[in-house]
């Protein structure tokens, strides 16, 4: 069972992802985002440690984005590496989840 580390400060929740955001952890990822939204509807997903994401992980991100927006917030992603960025681009998800270089960048002007 993957532990999802979430830190809330200044009204923004930051969720740190594991090395692989794949089918094995997609359900717990959704739960982690829902738990974060309950604390702060502005959520940054830190993909810095993530070397690999699959379509299940992407589905969880889209689900999380909807959950945040329904709560009056938003979801931003930060620190995405080459595989994550390529997959976001190929699935057109970079249009709704624009990757920010760092968590600090994602928090800026929020």
């Amino acid at each position: 069972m993957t532990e999802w580390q979430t830190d809330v400060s200044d009204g923004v929740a930051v969720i740190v992802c594991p090395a692989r955001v794949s089918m094995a952890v997609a359900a717990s990822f959704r739960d982690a985002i829902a738990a974060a939204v309950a604390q702060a509807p502005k959520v940054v997903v830190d993909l810095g440690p993530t070397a690999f994401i699959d379509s299940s992980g992407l589905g969880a991100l889209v689900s999380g984005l909807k959950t945040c927006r329904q709560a009056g917030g938003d979801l931003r992603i930060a620190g995405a590496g080459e595989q994550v960025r390529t997959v976001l681009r190929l699935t057109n998800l970079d249009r709704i989840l624009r990757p920010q270089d760092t968590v600090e960048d994602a928090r800026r002007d929020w």
Partner: protein
Amino acid sequence: MTGEHYDIEGLAVPRDMEQLHDLLERASTEHPHIPASDVMMFETAVMELANNVVEHGRPVGQVAWRFSLEVSADSLTARLADSGEEYAGWDAAASHDMPGEMAESGRGLPLASAVLDELDYQRDGASNVWTMVRRWQA
């Protein structure tokens, strides 16, 4: 060294599928001529097909799979065969259609198609067989 085969097998459950990451990492380490970006995209496709077997394999939890990988000078070829019931969801013509941005599922096969030069499904006797090929400039 090229032309080498790797074979592993397991059950169609997420835990067993994680072995595929390790196998591709090993193949990459043992064959430094494979461009890193090609391994990365091939791994993306392999895991999507593996997920598809987990998600659609029937009877649930009882489907066995065998994965074989062949490394050549300018390509990676994988064959993923499973013992499940015939897969009814394959439509070669529609396999490239990416769902809308707010969809929460349906990206697996389009993503695999996007990063492969060849993706094919065949029902072979009692097995579903997926063949995946990615090539690069040697």
